[in-house]
Each structure stands twice: as C-alpha cells, then as structure tokens.
C-alpha cells in the first residue's frame, strides 16, 4: 500500500515538473522579442509561408449598422501574419492572412450600444445629467447591450494589401465579420452575420463609392515612420473606411424565443440593411515587419 502511494506521488511530481517546464518554455518563447518587436509576439513568424507580421490597434471610429451607431471606445487588435501578395488574378496585390498564435486574430472587445435594449438615446444637445441618467437606466447590466465585432470566417479568409495600405490607395483590408449582440435577454448567440453570410468590410484609406443613400466618404492614409532601423514600418493616424457593405437579419437572439425576439431586434436596428445604409470608420495604428526580422530578433535574444 505504501509502495503504491509513493509511486503515485512520484508520478504526480513528474507530471508537475513537466507542466512547470512547459510553462517556463512557453514563457520564454513569448518573452524573447525586444523593443518594438514585442508587438509581434503572437505573429506566426516561424510558420512557413508567413512573409510579414502585422499588428493593428484600432483606437476609435464607429460602425453604423442600419439605424444603430456604435462608437468604438475600447481598442480592438487585429494581429497575425500574412503571405506574399499574389501577383496576378483576381487577388493580385492581396496577401492571405495567417492567424495569430494565441487564437486572438481579431480581439473580441464588447462595445457599448447607445440606448441599450430599449434603444433610448437622449439627443446630442441634452444636458450632461440627462445623458448620465439615460446611460444609468438604459445601458446598465440588464437593459444595456454590447456589440462585439468577431471574425465570421477563419483568419485565412482575411485579405490585406500591403501596397494599398502603404500608398494609401484602394481597398487595403478585406475583413469578413459578424456582430455579436449581448444582453441577458438576448442570450449568447445573438448575431448579425454568420460564417455563411458574413458582413464583408472592404476597408480603404481613400474615398469610397457607395450605393445611395450613402455618399462617398474619405479615409486617411495616415503618416509613416520607420522603427528598429527600418525593420518595422509604422503607419499612424490611419483611417480605414467602407460604407458600401450590407448586413443580413439578426439570428439567434433570445434563445428559444428567437422566433419572437429576432423580428424585434431586426425592427429596432433596421435589418437586413442594404448596401448604402451602413458605415464603418476605423482609426488605426498599424505596425508591420518582415517575419524574418521578427524571427531574427527572437533568435538574437535568447
């Protein structure tokens, strides 16, 4: 009996040691990058075919979905790697995205929906007290609603054009997304868009040409700076825009009562919303570096 206990203890100790060792290794692997390269810690720079690493921090902007306008107040990160751009065909000048190693290619950051579930938003010119009271009553844990942009398809379906981004011309980022609406009444599966019917953002830093009633809007190619002696390209004050996308009807809202709740949500937001009625403006700071540079920095700093 004592022998059995000792044996069990030994096995447990060995398992613990292996677990600790692997934790330590994982810690080291993500702690090697230095300076500005640290931003690329979740870039799959060791993966064959990954040409560049990208880290884009969204610092503001707005998404107008039907009749609802959501201001982006909390930063959303798009990170990972991308392949060399195709040189011909329909995808010429576009690279395929490669998912971030931590699984968070597009970080899921809930943004507050003004007016919450009841959709009650005081007019812009209302006194601060009225705005505060409105937020307290209609944007609280019970009636408040958050919206989270999530990838609707695998990261490999994202397309990025390095040259369009750098020159500030044309569609720079093709992002298939869905909007996750969350609230205790809506349940956990209330989405606008899905993997089979995604919202397709085609974001550009120049001027859009949307269908009516939207009018053309113009982004901002931003400014450029080189970091780490030319190894990292930083684009800041970039504003990517698209107001030509469409959105399908909401689905899965209200759990088993979705047949009742979906129509209410659709009516409140104005879904499905045809192309020309929706707008995205995303303010970004974008860093990109060759995967080779990132890997070298990693190897140079054991």
């Amino acid at each position, binding site marked *: 009996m004592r022998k059995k206990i000792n044996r069990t203890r030994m096995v447990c100790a060995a398992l613990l040691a292996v677990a600790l060792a692997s934790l330590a290794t994982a810690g080291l692997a993500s702690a090697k990058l230095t300076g500005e390269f640290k931003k690329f810690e979740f870039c799959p720079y060791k993966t064959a075919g990954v040409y560049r690493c990208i880290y884009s921090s969204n610092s503001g902007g707005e998404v107008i979905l039907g009749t609802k306008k959501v201001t982006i107040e909390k930063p959303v990160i798009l990170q990972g790697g991308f392949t060399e751009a195709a040189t011909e065909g329909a995808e010429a000048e576009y690279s395929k995205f490669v998912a971030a190693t931590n699984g968070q290619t597009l970080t899921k950051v809930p943004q507050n929906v003004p007016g919450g579930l009841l959709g009650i938003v005081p007019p812009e010119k209302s006194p601060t007290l009225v705005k505060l009271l409105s937020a307290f009553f209609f944007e609280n844990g019970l009636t408040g609603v958050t919206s989270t942009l999530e990838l609707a398809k695998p990261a490999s379906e994202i397309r990025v054009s*390095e*040259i369009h981004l*750098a*020159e*500030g011309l044309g569609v720079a980022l093709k992002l298939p997304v869905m909007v996750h609406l969350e609230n205790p009444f809506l349940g956990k599966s209330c989405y606008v868009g899905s993997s089979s019917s995604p919202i397709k953002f085609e974001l550009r*830093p120049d001027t859009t040409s949307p269908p009516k009633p939207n009018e053309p809007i113009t982004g901002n*190619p*931003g*400014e*450029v*700076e*080189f*970091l*780490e*002696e*030319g*190894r*990292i*390209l930083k*684009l800041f004050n970039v504003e990517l825009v698209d107001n030509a996308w469409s959105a399908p009807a909401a689905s899965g809202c209200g759990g088993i009562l979705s047949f009742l709740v979906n129509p209410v949500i659709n009516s409140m937001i104005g879904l499905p919303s045809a192309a020309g009625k929706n707008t995205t403006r995303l303010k970004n700071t974008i860093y*990109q*570096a*060759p995967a*080779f*540079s990132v890997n*070298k920095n990693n190897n140079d700093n054991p």
Partner: protein
Amino acid sequence: MKRKTKFLRGFVAILAIGAAFSASANAAPAWNFEGKALEGSEVILGGAYESALTLPGLVTKCENFLYKLSIKNEAGTGKGELTEMPLYNCTTNSSACAVKTIGAETLPWPAKLTTVVPSNYIVIEKVKVGIVYSGVECALGGLLVRVTGTAGGLLDNVAETATFNSASFSATKTELKALSGKAEWGGVFPTEAFQWHRNQPLTVS
C-alpha cells in the same frame, strides 16, 4: 482740394501695396547669361553636391545624383524641362535596407522659375521617382515606393546653385509624398550651362 489730394495719395498707396503683394506671390523671373535674358534654349548639366530623401526614420542617399535640365524663356518667364536624372550608388542609413533600384519615372518633368520675395526659386513639377528597397529584414523589402509631387529649390546667383530643403519647399508651397506620408528631399545642385553658354555665369532675375 486738399481732401482730393489726400484721397489720391491714399489710393496710389493702396495700389502700390497691392502690386507689391501680387509680385511677392506671382512674379516670374527669367534665365539670364551675363546679365542678358536667355534667347533660345540652353542645357544645364550637373551632379548634386549632396542629396538625401528622408522618410521619418529612413534616409536614402545617392553618391551620384546627376541631372539634365533644358531651359528657355517664354514670354519673359524662365521655364524648363528636366529630361534626365540618373541616380547611382544609393544607400540608406538602415543596416536592414539597401536600395535595389531607383530611377526617375515619366520624364520629362516641367520646371518653372518663380519669385517669393526676396528670393528666386525653381519649381519642378510632376516629380515621380520609383525606389525598390531590398533586404530580408527591411520593412519595405520588395515594395515599390513612389516619391511624387512638386519640388521647389532656392536659386543662388552668386554660388550658381539650386538648393532644395524644407525651407525652399515651404517657401514655394511644394511637397513630395511617399508611402502616403510626406517625404523630405534635400540637395544642392550646381546650375552650370553646358551648351551655348559654357563658362558664362547663369543668373535668375
């Protein structure tokens, strides 16, 4: 009578001020050799004494920055065309980035003289230079970077040079762009005639 004279004086003064302001913005000087306005055309050849293109964090320099500018006066105004601009031995200040290719595109580029009181400037329009950087570690490796825009350079009659820098760009309200941002170009170029007016001092006034 006194009142009428006063009014006339004031009116003349206003006219004079207006004329001065319009001159400071729009006066167009001409090319001159030995004090006489150039008739027909002439060719200016030269190489930059020093030249650098700066994007924030990345400086590109060329040891050999040559140019060929064809000049003439049209209706009393100095004009020109930059017809050649070969660039050799170009490097960057980055240990990661080398210059693979660099060259002027869509030549000729039109040029004109202008005065922004008290100085004369040459303004080169439709500038388009393509640069391909190389280096597996270079953030721009393999990308074609285009420098485009208009460049204004300060003309110095004594030194016989054209100097391009941020002050000359600002004075002439010109700008070069690269990679969606502003590019700074600095350089000092000799203005020496190489065809009909060799060894004759070139002035602009």
